């Protein structure tokens, strides 16, 4: 009587997947969860916001420095020339 022999694994042949050997009723291992597309975006929000805040602060500081630099310092004299109650005159000496 010919003995039933276990089929020998040939070299190079991939081992049979483990789940294939599991018996009926056993729970299959869950497949790894794929990362949601929104998670990637969320990861970038904080650095982008931080970068924008830094750029805005730099622009504001530069504008303030420029404004102060443009504003003259030191003693000065304000001159005001003024008229009043001209009342529509175009002709008199004034």
């Amino acid at each position, binding site marked *: 009587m010919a003995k039933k022999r276990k089929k020998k694994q040939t070299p190079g042949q991939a081992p049979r997947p483990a789940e294939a050997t599991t018996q009926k009723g056993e729970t299959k291992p869950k497949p790894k969860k794929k990362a949601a597309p929104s998670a990637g975006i969320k990861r970038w929000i904080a650095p982008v916001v931080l970068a924008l805040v830094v750029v805005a602060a730099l622009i504001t500081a530069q504008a303030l420095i420029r404004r102060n630099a443009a504003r003259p310092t030191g*003693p000065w004299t304000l001159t*005001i020339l*003024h008229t*009043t*109650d001209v009342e529509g005159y*175009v002709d*008199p000496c004034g």
Partner: protein
Amino acid sequence: MARRATAIKDYRAKTPYLLVLDAGDALFGQPVSDISQGKALTEAMNLMKYDAMAIGERDLAHFPELLDRSREAKFAFLSANLVYASTGKPVFTPYVVQNVGGRKVAIIGLTPADDTFKSFVPSSADITAKDPVETAREYVAKARAEKVDAVVILSHLGNVMDRKIATEVNGITAIVGGHSYDLLQETLQLNNTVIGQAGYGGEWLGEITVDFDGEGNVVSAKAGVIPLSADYADDPELAALAARYNAALPPTPTLQP
């Protein structure tokens, strides 16, 4: 007017820290100005590069045409205390902060709130005038909060009210006055505020000078008037403008013998 333009040009060549202001009742009152509905004087003041004018009661008598002139003007029509009675909103710009050679100067306009105002303003205009002293206090504080170098009140209140405001409200550098026809030839200074007024009819040009030290403190101030005599030649552009508006006048009727 043509001599005034020459005098103003002379000053512009001398200093970058120059303001040219009118304290009100400027645009109407003569046939040439009334027929043009205030356009003649608005155009002239544009050419002379005025910075601002206060609203006087005689200007207000021509409301709402005055609003049209304010849109055509290249200078500010100021009144901090004129508001619409129904809404409380300002009728004109209350104040401006002018860049004067790099310095910041606030100019606040004030209009009479007494019986003079009531007799001139059309009843249909829905305009009321708030108390000038309280309004000055409010707007001087606002202007000072903007870290300005100087605060000027452009007042059509008359000299008595100008003195009252100078005494009761702190922080005013100068008051340029009108309405009472005072020709202030000497410096008048109260509570560190210099007050000037240049008569009427455009025959004089008022001059106020205020010296500041490097810390922004007033060290001295002067006020006076310049008579626009024949020493000043007529500015050709202004002379041509006056001639153009005069030519548009209807001929004066003559009495028959």
